[in-house]
């Protein structure tokens, strides 16, 4: 009886620690793979700017961009060519934008919220191939 209890306790302990860590990351990896095409991280230019700055996507397939603002100020997202935008992505929040590219070429996207003095340099490119 005592042996069983000890085993249960140790199992629970491992579940709470190692189990939680593995579980969290496995679930998140599966979720991203299933739902989103691209992950985009929003940061002011002095803190690293958009990451990645270049997004390559295929023509004619629906794209879901998963935008994470990892900073302490609000950012926005706009891709004028395809009329896609997220008005304000607050600090620590996540927004998802969807669109289907219907032409080839290189198109700029940029931040739409005054996030720092370098705000105007916060831009990147979408390349449709």
């Amino acid at each position, binding site marked *: 009886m005592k042996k069983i209890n000890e085993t249960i306790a140790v199992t629970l302990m491992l579940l709470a620690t190692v189990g939680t860590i593995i579980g969290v990351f496995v679930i998140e990896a599966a979720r991203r793979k299933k739902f989103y095409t691209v992950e985009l991280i929003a940061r002011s230019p002095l803190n690293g700017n958009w990451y990645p700055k270049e997004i390559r996507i295929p023509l004619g397939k629906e794209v879901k961009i998963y935008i994470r603002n990892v900073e*302490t*100020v*609000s950012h926005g997202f706009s891709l004028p060519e395809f009329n896609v935008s997220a008005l304000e992505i*607050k600090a*620590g929040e996540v927004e998802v934008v969807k669109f289907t590219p219907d032409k080839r070429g290189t198109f700029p996207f940029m931040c739409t*919220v*005054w*996030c720092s*003095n370098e705000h105007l340099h916060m831009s990147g490119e979408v390349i449709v191939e």
Partner: protein
Amino acid sequence: MKNIRAISIFSFIVYSLWLMASPAQAAEKFFEIKAKKFSYTPNIITVNRGDTVKIRLLSEDVHHGFFLDGYGIKTSAHPGMDGSLKFIADKPGRYTFRCSVTCGEFHPYMVGYLVVGPNSRFWLFAAIVLVIGIGSIITLNRVKKTNG
């Protein structure tokens, strides 16, 4: 015990008289508040109860907000895009206004004060503390006398 009662009744009367006294002529007050990480200028604004308060909020760096405790009203300002507020300061006391748009790591600590005078809230509690303090000494000495 009697003394405590006397003091409390006396202070209560003084306090209510003071509250009932008509507030200074209600005026319209205008403030231009500049918000910059992580403070407001001016950081403390003082008005009288009954005043109409107009606030223009300017931001000098990023998107900042302005939420007024107690009154529950808010506005926000982008650089070059001001915010404004108008309200009647009918609640006495000191109220904190705080940034309502995450603006940086110290955002939760970006605050300023609106003092709607007279600050009867503070004076009420200060009077209670003093009455208790003085009353407790008197009670202690009474006990001593009755005990002989």
